């Protein structure tokens, strides 16, 4: 340790002081929420903020390390959340006893066969077919495969919906479900990344936005799988439940578990950042051409980090939805589950994981507290407007007041981009300051 040069020794200290000051301020804010809103409420907020922090770290490594523009965070949250629900929800005996189960199995085999078939056709170049023909054949094969598979799924799904409601879950421990959440989100990310990562950043944004909408459309309409709008609840908890311990203790245990996961994720990601792997990632982000000419596989590394980020997003999503104890496909919206996370990352400081955690907690507090604040503000406006000018407010003023949150999130994005594009805790670049 004595070999360290003086400059390298000093720099971290100086900026840690800033970190400590900011996190201390955040602590005061949290304490204020505890004092004002009560412990049970504040603990709930902290659990959700911690889950969002895991999601924000996932997005942060995609955007901050590799410059990948993922606006489909909601889709990966939903995919992870549902995967976890499927693995952990109690077994639905009616489904396994009915004819729907074997029929569904056969349909899934058809699906796998169809994917393999289309994949084989897409490899047509290897047997010497021209590219144009392969393209056309792949598209035709894809369309045919889609129609065949959707026809095969038709009968079992209607049967399941009629006889068993939905397929239920596998009844496995919750932690297994959370791992499954990461795996499923990662698999989807692999497919998306394979297709889109060679393209320009804007295209990735448009593609991920679409993926998120499609995942949501599917999960909302596939009643046989998710009960659709009927929602799935109550979801199991990995820690003792509210019924056993009461609100405060149950939420406290959940918070402890989530915080441990967050800490582990943070330490691992931080290690990776300072390892040669992280340096390579930043090199690719800062100068793709140079990195590529040094023999780095740019697209391969990007795919890696896109998958890794989405795994974290999926796990975070699962933690979030299990805590809420209900899986409601309509409850996932871009605003809460994509753009809010983006605000957390850019406000905290892209490329800095402490910044992502700080941003997540701060923005979530603001987000949660803005609801009573907006209602109070608009209530005040209504009273004063009424007294001074005889203004009669529209009856849905309260629901309109809540729409202000959309505006505030948008304004925050634009203002931060303009005045503090590196966030409050910017990435520390070695050898530049």
């Amino acid at each position, binding site marked *: 340790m004595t070999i360290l040069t003086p400059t390298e020794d000093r720099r971290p200290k100086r900026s840690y002081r800033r970190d400590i000051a900011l996190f201390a301020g955040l602590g005061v804010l949290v304490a204020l929420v505890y004092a004002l809103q009560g412990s049970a409420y504040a603990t709930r907020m902290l659990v959700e903020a911690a889950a969002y922090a895991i999601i924000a770290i996932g997005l942060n490594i995609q955007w901050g390390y590799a*410059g990948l*523009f993922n*606006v489909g965070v909601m889709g990966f949250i939903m995919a992870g959340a549902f995967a976890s629900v499927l693995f952990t929800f109690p077994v639905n005996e009616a489904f396994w006893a009915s004819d729907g189960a074997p029929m569904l199995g056969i349909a899934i085999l058809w699906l796998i066969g169809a994917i393999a078939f289309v994949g084989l056709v897409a490899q047509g170049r290897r047997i010497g077919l021209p590219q144009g023909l392969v*393209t056309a054949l792949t*598209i035709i094969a894809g*369309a045919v495969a889609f*129609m065949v598979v*959707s026809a095969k799924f038709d009968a079992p799904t209607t049967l399941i919906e009629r006889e068993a409601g939905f397929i239920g879950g596998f009844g496995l421990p919750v932690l297994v479900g959370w791992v499954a959440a990461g795996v499923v989100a990662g698999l989807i990310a692999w497919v998306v990344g394979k*297709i*889109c990562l060679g*393209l*320009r*950043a*804007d*295209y990735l*944004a*448009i*593609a991920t*936005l*679409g*993926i998120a*909408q*499609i995942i949501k*459309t*599917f999960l*909302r*309409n596939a009643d046989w799988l998710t009960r659709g709008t009927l929602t799935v609840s109550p979801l199991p908890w990995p820690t003792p439940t509210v019924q056993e311990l009461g609100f405060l203790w149950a939420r406290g245990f959940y918070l402890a578990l989530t915080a441990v996961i967050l800490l582990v994720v943070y330490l691992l990601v931080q290690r990776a950042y300072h390892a040669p792997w992280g340096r390579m990632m930043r090199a690719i982000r800062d100068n793709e051409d140079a990195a590529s000419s040094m023999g780095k596989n740019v697209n391969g590394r990007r795919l890696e980090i896109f998958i890794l980020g989405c795994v974290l997003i999926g796990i975070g999503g699962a933690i979030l939805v299990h805590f809420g104890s209900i899986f409601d496909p309509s409850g996932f919206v871009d*605003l809460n589950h994509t*753009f809010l996370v*983006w605000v957390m990352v*850019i406000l905290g400081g892209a490329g800095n994981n402490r910044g992502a955690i700080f941003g997540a907690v701060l923005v979530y507090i603001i987000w949660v507290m803005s609801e009573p604040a907006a209602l109070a503000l608009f209530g005040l406006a209504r009273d004063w407007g009424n007294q001074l000018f005889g203004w009669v407010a*529209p009856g*849905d003023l309260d*629901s*309109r*007041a809540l*729409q*202000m*949150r*959309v*505006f*505030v*999130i*948008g*304004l*925050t*994005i*634009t203002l931060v*981009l*303009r005045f503090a*594009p590196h966030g409050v805790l910017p990435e520390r670049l070695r050898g530049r300051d």
Partner: protein
Amino acid sequence: MDELVFLINRGVIGGLILGSVYALGAVGVTLIFGILRFAHFAHGDMMTAGAFFAFMLAALLASFGVDLPVPLALALLPVVMGLTALFAIGLDKAFYKPLRDKGARPVVLVMASIGVTLMLQGLIRLFAGTGTRDMYLNAPKDIFRIPTGGRPIVVTEPQIWLILLTILAVVALHFFLTRSRLGKAMRAVSDNPELARVTGIPLETVVKATWIIGGGLAALAGTMLALDVSLRADLAYNMLLPIFAAAILGGIGQPYGAIAGGFIIGFAETFAIFNFSVILRPLADILPFAVPASLAVVPTEYRLVVPFVILVVVLIYRPTGIFKGRVF
């Protein structure tokens, strides 16, 4: 015969309407992409904003007792288009230009446009609530039934106007881009911004013109769409994906490509959810299999998937689009 009319009513007219709206939106997106080099996510909400301007002005006039043979919102279109164009320039001044001047990367501008989208949505919902409104204030919608012997072909007044105005806008755009100085300058900037700058083309004027055209066409599309269906705060958010799909399909930076792409996406979407079993029913005796009750390529609730699949296929196999757009 009835089946053919059904196809025309549901498929052809529906596709034309949707295609017109997508095309008008995609022209704006593609011009902004070509000249300012970023994907403008707020374009859908600019359409909604235009429709709301039209609604507010029309409601104002109606409250003064003004009554015209055409719907008020339609008569006010030129005003609304101008207003939305000004609004678009204002958005640029307030949110995009400062970033551009600082030399921000295009990705940052895209993110800023997402911020603008959210702000517009918030404001529209704050002022207009989340309910739906009918844009026909003074009289009910005219519905034309063209007799064919059996079931009539049904077209409504706003649908006819939308198709006519789209043709008019496309022709006007064509003459603007090929004949006027500014239009030529726009194409030059879109082709090669560096070269255009050194030849002395005023970049800020071109940028302004881009917003005017994009905003005006967005207002046209939004207002006509709201006249055809109804006005909602989330009128155009779901249009974002098809509009981008149309712009990319046509080749980024190619206005004609965007128009073609808009109609292709519009028809693809309409026909993908079209129930073909109606067409097959008269042939039921000849066909070797029983005609199923519903025979659509995708169920109606999955219509959003169609433009997305087209988008992804185009991105994989022809990232420059069918009209050979630019690769950045």
